């Protein structure tokens, strides 16, 4: 390998300082890989010119799949032939991002052989992203990875790779089996994941509780968030321990409870559970003393996304409480129905959240056969403009 040697004075600045350096990483890969080396070169140019040097991706992929690979081409291919093609391969990560050394090493071996040696662990949708390869290596990469039990993630107008928080794998608050739900949905909807046939992308993120460590409420068309019914479990001895260790329970917990449903009497916490909104604050800050109630399920929310075209959206409640046990048929049915409605009415590049805003919640809820309940809204409408059906008038 006789490589072009790039001077990278600007990028070199980014090797200083305590935080691990991506420049160092590129250089590490560059030492054994031409593509990575040319990436270094073109990136220095980008830093110099303060602009990108990539072109729109063409459609590339593996046989039988419509997604999983992001095609990417340089607009200066002659100067940097190693990145003339520089596609990324999205490998469907494991639920909760758990790995073994062996599994990761396997992937590294494949990637050193067929790719740039650079990766993203992980993409912000959750995929294990292999960053930079050429069109003719794609089939090989797929054969190597899939034969070892890995599959591609999503891209394009498809279900995107579902992801979740660590959940029951290591967290005391997980009220749903985030890892298993994510696995089960991914398996169930393989076709929807690999063969784009939707109006636009559809993301699913599952959080074990309202703390939402996977940012489900903000970044998923379908947000599943674990929650409970029943009273918060209180261990008063531990409450006293927290106080003994110096916690200002009144100030940090009682006064910060958003519903004002807590009180502290003689060092014991009392909760008016009927007014608790299950926000998780008290539980998170007093994990030894307070635990969620015993009946577990999920709040189902839909529609969050980035700003295009009508402004960023957060997901909103459509089912306040759904018990979620394998095989999750209730959830799968609901998802299928959502898709059916979206498929029918969604315009090209219209996310489901935007469609709900455009056509109103009523039609969506009626299609899903969900009754309207106040938990679906922060507040009722203000302007007295609304529709009646013939049915409603006649009764």
């Amino acid at each position: 390998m006789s490589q072009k040697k790039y001077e990278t004075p600007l990028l070199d600045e980014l090797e200083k300082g305590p935080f691990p350096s991506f420049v160092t990483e590129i250089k590490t890969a560059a030492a054994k890989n031409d593509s990575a080396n040319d990436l270094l070169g073109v990136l220095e140019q980008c830093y110099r010119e303060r602009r990108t040097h990539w072109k729109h991706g063409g459609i590339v992929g593996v046989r039988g799949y419509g997604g999983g690979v992001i095609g990417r081409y340089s607009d200066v291919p002659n100067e940097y032939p190693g990145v003339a093609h520089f596609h990324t391969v999205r490998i469907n990560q494991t639920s909760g991002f758990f790995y073994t050394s062996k599994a990761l090493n396997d992937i590294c071996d494949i990637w050193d052989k067929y790719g740039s040696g650079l990766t993203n662990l992980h993409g912000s949708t959750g995929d294990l992203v292999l960053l930079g390869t050429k069109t003719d290596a794609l089939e090989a990469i797929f054969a190597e990875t899939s034969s070892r039990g890995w599959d591609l993630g999503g891209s394009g107008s498809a279900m995107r790779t579902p992801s979740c928080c660590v959940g029951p794998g290591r967290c005391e608050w997980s009220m749903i089996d985030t890892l298993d739900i994510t696995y089960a949905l991914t398996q169930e909807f393989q076709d929807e994941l690999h063969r784009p046939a939707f109006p636009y992308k559809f993301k699913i993120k599952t959080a074990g509780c309202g703390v939402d460590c996977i940012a489900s409420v903000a970044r998923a068309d379908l947000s599943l968030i674990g929650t409970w019914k029943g009273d918060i479990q209180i261990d008063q001895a531990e409450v006293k321990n927290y106080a003994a260790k110096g916690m200002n329970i009144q100030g940090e917990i009682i006064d910060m409870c958003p519903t004002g449903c807590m009180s502290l009497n003689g060092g014991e916490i009392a909760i008016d559970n009927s007014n608790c909104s299950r926000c998780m604050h008290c539980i998170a800050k007093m994990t030894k003393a307070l635990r969620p109630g015993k009946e577990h399920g999920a709040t189902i929310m839909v529609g969050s996304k980035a700003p295009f075209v009508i402004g960023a959206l957060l997901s909103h409640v459509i089912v306040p409480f759904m018990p979620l046990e394998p095989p999750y048929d209730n959830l799968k049915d609901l998802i299928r129905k959502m898709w059916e409605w979206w498929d029918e009415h969604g315009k090209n590049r219209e996310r489901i959240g935007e469609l709900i805003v455009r056509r109103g919640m009523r039609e969506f809820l009626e299609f899903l056969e969900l009754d309207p309940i106040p938990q679906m809204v922060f507040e009722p409408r203000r302007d007295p403009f609304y529709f009646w059906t013939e049915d409603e008038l006649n009764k």
Partner: protein
Amino acid sequence: MADLPQRQTDIGPPHYMQFLPPVAQKNYGQWKYHEQLSGGSMVHVAESGDKLWTVRAASPRLISTDFIRGLTALADKYCGGHLRFTTRHNVEFLVSDESNLKPLMDELKQKNYMVGGIGDGISNIVHTQGWVHCHSAATDASGLVKVLMDEFADYFTGTKTLPARVRFAVACCTNMCGAVHCSDIAVVGIHRKPPTIVHEDVKRACEVPSTIGSCPTGAISPDPANKSVKIKEEKCMYCGNCYSVCPAMPISDPDNDGVAIVAGGKIGSLRSNPKFSKLVIPYLPNNTPKWPEVVAAFRTILTAYENGARKHERLGEWIDRVGWEKFFSLTGLPFTHQHIDDFTIARETYRTSAAFKW
């Protein structure tokens, strides 16, 4: 490629259970509580009394296979080969045997890993591709992450703490792949000039109706003469969505591209509902390689927060308590026409009350 193994399709990812450390398999869903041990370590205790220690270290996310092999070597040595990544790109070593905890941490330190990210401080930055891989980027992401994390390293390692978690994000364009829209403080790449239209290419490469439909402000209309589209420039706010849909409308312009800073978002439902981030600085230049203006802006905002917030109060909660008018006076950041919303829900942001602070 005859020597390739037999491909398989639609198998999905491997089953997660095999990757969990045995103690996590055994105590799956039976965790009782956790304790933070340091800025980068914590222990989870199961109902059974079993324990699982976690040591967290920073990763730049854009990493080489060698970096990964470095991690797996440590995992093999101290964790029975078990490790995971977090939703913020950190790596977590999952230690089942307490006696491995200190040696692991020592070795991490010795090898210059940056251990931290746990508790009330600044964790790693959710971010995107930038100039490393995306045609759409108005700024780079990895570079911004690097300079910000260097600047605020002490809040990652736990040397310094904050009233609550402060979550950063970076997105290199308004597609916002880095979930900027609900972050405590975040950067988003922006343009400031309308796209140019390369009519011949529009004809060839673009679908006119979806190009028109992509424009949030309805600035694009058909240009039948050219079999192309035209832009009503005074309606264009340079979002670049047309360029996402139609490559024949390049928008990048080094002298006018740059970043905006948004702040005050949050995700969890604790105390207050999830909140969108709001615009705090409409434009800072792409002053490569170190974006000093961006770093300074983050410092300004963070300092005001640190001085003003109550314990457990997130940045957006602090701002909501004191009011945005106070935020601007406390930070000294200028307030401009760009701050006043004129997009879809603009009117809900107008101050329809005579109660505000001077």
